[in-house]
């Protein structure tokens, strides 16, 4: 639908200017949320860098096995979930409703796999004596606080994303939501993926032994 047609479609024949960005309002609002959330994660990562630089006794606890290898698998899973999300958006935009729902389900499943791998890693760290305020290896206790804080906020985003994907998939299947909703949800999911592209190198790889 062209912008002039859209303006008329708004009702009562009123002439309303189209969006200067050429996107609908929910997509623009999602972009604004993403920019704000990127600043939040940026501030957390800068805070982590600040504490790391300011702590001469910072330790590097992560071995290749299991932590870095697990992180690589988690990264591959999350990247693949972005690909399935793109397939869902493509299917939704071309009217293949059942395929879109299947791809949304696959994306949510990969998100759950990521969360499960993440939680398994956390519980292994807890078993080794790590916590947000304890460091069993000696050195700065700030490592646990920053690690669990940053990865915890990201995990929360993943879990919220999984819930959103399932809700959107169900509503899209019933015809209550359209392709633009799937695309907007996809924006959020890709953002969660991109945040991890900074968390993995800065929080995991920079702390590898």
């Amino acid at each position, binding site marked *: *639908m062209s*912008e002039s047609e*859209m303006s008329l*479609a*708004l009702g009562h024949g009123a002439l309303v200017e*189209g*969006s*200067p*960005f*050429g*996107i*609908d309002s929910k*997509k*623009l609002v999602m*972009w*604004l949320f993403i*920019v704000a959330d*990127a*600043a939040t994660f*940026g*501030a957390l990562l*800068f805070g982590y*860098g*600040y*504490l790391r*630089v*300011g*702590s*001469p*006794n910072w330790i590097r606890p992560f071995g*290749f096995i299991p932590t*870095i290898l697990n992180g*690589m698998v988690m*990264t*591959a899973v999350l*990247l693949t979930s*972005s*690909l399935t*999300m*793109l*397939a869902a958006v*493509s299917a939704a*935009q071309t009217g293949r409703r059942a395929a879109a729902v299947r791809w949304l389900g696959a994306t949510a499943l990969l998100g759950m796999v990521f969360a499960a791998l993440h939680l398994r890693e956390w519980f292994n760290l807890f078993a080794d004596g790590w916590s947000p305020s304890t460091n069993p290896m000696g050195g700065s206790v700030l490592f646990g606080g920053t690690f669990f804080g940053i990865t915890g906020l990201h995990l929360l985003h993943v879990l919220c994303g999984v819930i959103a994907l399932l809700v959107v998939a169900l509503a899209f299947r019933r015809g209550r939501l*359209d*392709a*633009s909703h799937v*695309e907007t949800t996809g*924006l959020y999911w*890709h*953002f969660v*993926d*991109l945040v991890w*592209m*900074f968390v*993995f*190198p*800065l929080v995991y*790889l*920079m702390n*590898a032994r």
Partner: protein
Amino acid sequence: MVEMESAPAAGMRVYVAVWAGLLLIVGVEVALTYAHLPTSTLLYALLALALTEAGLGVMYFMHLKYERRALFWSLIPALIFVFIMMNQFWSDAYRLRSLHQ
């Protein structure tokens, strides 16, 4: 319901190529981590690679490349400005480090 025109996005073939490129970059990051580089060199290399990944993701996966330029110029420079401003705290981090040594 009012819908806007969808921007013409890339096909799945392009997405798969970007996805493979991103996986390759992750592999390079891990290889660099175990190449025994100085910490600062490793940090800059990982940041450059992460920014490359973010750029690919934002432009292709999030379709910013296919949206109007007004959207890019309204969002991205402001975010970069915020990140640049956060860098002013490093001098205090080094001061803190010198206090503990």
